[in-house]
């Protein structure tokens, strides 16, 4: 297959998959809304599944051959440029993360614990050999230290960093899709809420975790907003302080949402959105895949 033809098929596949992406993300939104009273861990699981479906849709579209190939090299170039720009912050940050100076102070299993004066608050990254870094200010106060460690170790245990990175890359591939980034912010927010819940379940006092967050947020420049809409941090602190049961039936929601999503994906696999070629785009029939 010639280069331009492969490119045309790829562009077609991206467009094909992005239409289905709309349906999948809408479904993710509907299910997480329905799970409003369930735990953040459940909603995070649903968003993770939703995001896992996106590369699968792209792969399926490309493998089967999209309905139409779009012979517009500029469109392919635009897509690639956008994807690179969207992935760039992750690459730049990874590079800067590697250059942060920190001192290892201990370890928990494979997780390395350390302290660094060059971070503005506790952070964690890494998958096989994760790192949890605390800042000196957080380490000084014992309740804060415990709350921060419990929260970060919960991220490690849940595998949140890997999900964070892979879903970001998925967003980069669908950078032009208006629903992808808001959905990703929901996923990231639920991961924080879930780690807060896990920290409290492990015995951290809600007031300690809330005080730690408030202490960190108070050192940030105030928001430029009018103060009508509550900031995500304020919402999070209030949610931490709210007395309630935290680990609601995780399995039930997970099973129900997985089954729903699987059904939807199967249906989408059969759906071929381009019954008629869209206008304003130069279209040509996809090249048939060569016979084995």
């Amino acid at each position, binding site marked *: 297959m010639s280069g331009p033809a492969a490119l045309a098929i790829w562009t077609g596949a991206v467009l094909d998959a992005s239409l289905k992406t709309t349906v999948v993300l809408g479904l993710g939104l509907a299910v997480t809304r329905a799970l409003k009273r369930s735990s953040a861990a459940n909603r995070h699981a649903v968003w993770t599944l939703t995001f896992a479906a996106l590369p699968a849709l792209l792969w399926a579209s490309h493998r089967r051959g999209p309905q139409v190939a779009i012979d517009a090299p500029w469109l392919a170039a635009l897509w690639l440029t956008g994807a690179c720009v969207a992935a760039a912050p992750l690459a*730049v940050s990874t590079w800067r*993360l590697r*250059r942060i100076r920190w001192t290892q102070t201990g370890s928990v299993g494979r997780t390395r614990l350390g302290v660094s004066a060059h971070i503005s608050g506790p952070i964690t990254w890494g998958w096989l050999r994760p790192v949890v870094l605390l800042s000196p200010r957080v380490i000084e106060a014992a309740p804060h230290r415990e709350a921060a460690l419990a929260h970060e170790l919960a991220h490690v245990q849940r595998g949140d960093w890997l999900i964070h990175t892979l879903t970001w890359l998925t967003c980069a591939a669908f950078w032009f899709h208006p629903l992808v980034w808001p959905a990703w912010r929901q996923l990231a927010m639920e991961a924080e809420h879930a780690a807060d819940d896990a920290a409290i379940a492990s015995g951290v006092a809600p007031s300690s975790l809330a005080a730690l967050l408030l202490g*960190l947020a*108070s050192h940030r420049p*105030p928001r430029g907003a009018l*103060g009508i809409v509550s*900031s*995500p941090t304020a919402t999070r602190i209030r949610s931490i302080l709210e007395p309630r049961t935290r680990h609601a039936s995780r399995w039930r929601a997970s099973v129900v949402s997985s089954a729903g999503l699987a059904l939807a994906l199967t249906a989408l696999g059969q759906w071929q959105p381009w019954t008629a070629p869209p206008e304003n785009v130069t279209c040509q029939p996809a090249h048939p895949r060569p016979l084995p």
Partner: protein
Amino acid sequence: MDDPLSRRERQVMDLIYRHGAASVATIRDAMADPPSYSAVRALMSTLVEKEHLRYEADGRRYVYHPTVPAERASLPALQRVVSAFFDGSPAKAALALLHLDDGLTAEEIASLEAAIAAAREQGR
């Protein structure tokens, strides 16, 4: 004031805006990959010459302030987009306990402090 800023100078200005006002030592501590103390002081002196910063004596040390408040120091739109994307803090590739842009208003801080005190009284 129209002199373009070097990468380091831009970094110092970003940190000054983040802190509101800061000493040389504070800025150096906040840099991820800091040059020597005297190099940071030299950078800040250049920024004073370029009229981006002014300083005030606070006891034995100098505290630097931006000459233009943060709201008005708007960069050209394109430059701002580029810096938002490429000046990425290391926290983007990690899970931060709190994201950099999550500031709170004074009213929110006061009300949350009260809520935390109430939770403490209930032993939570």
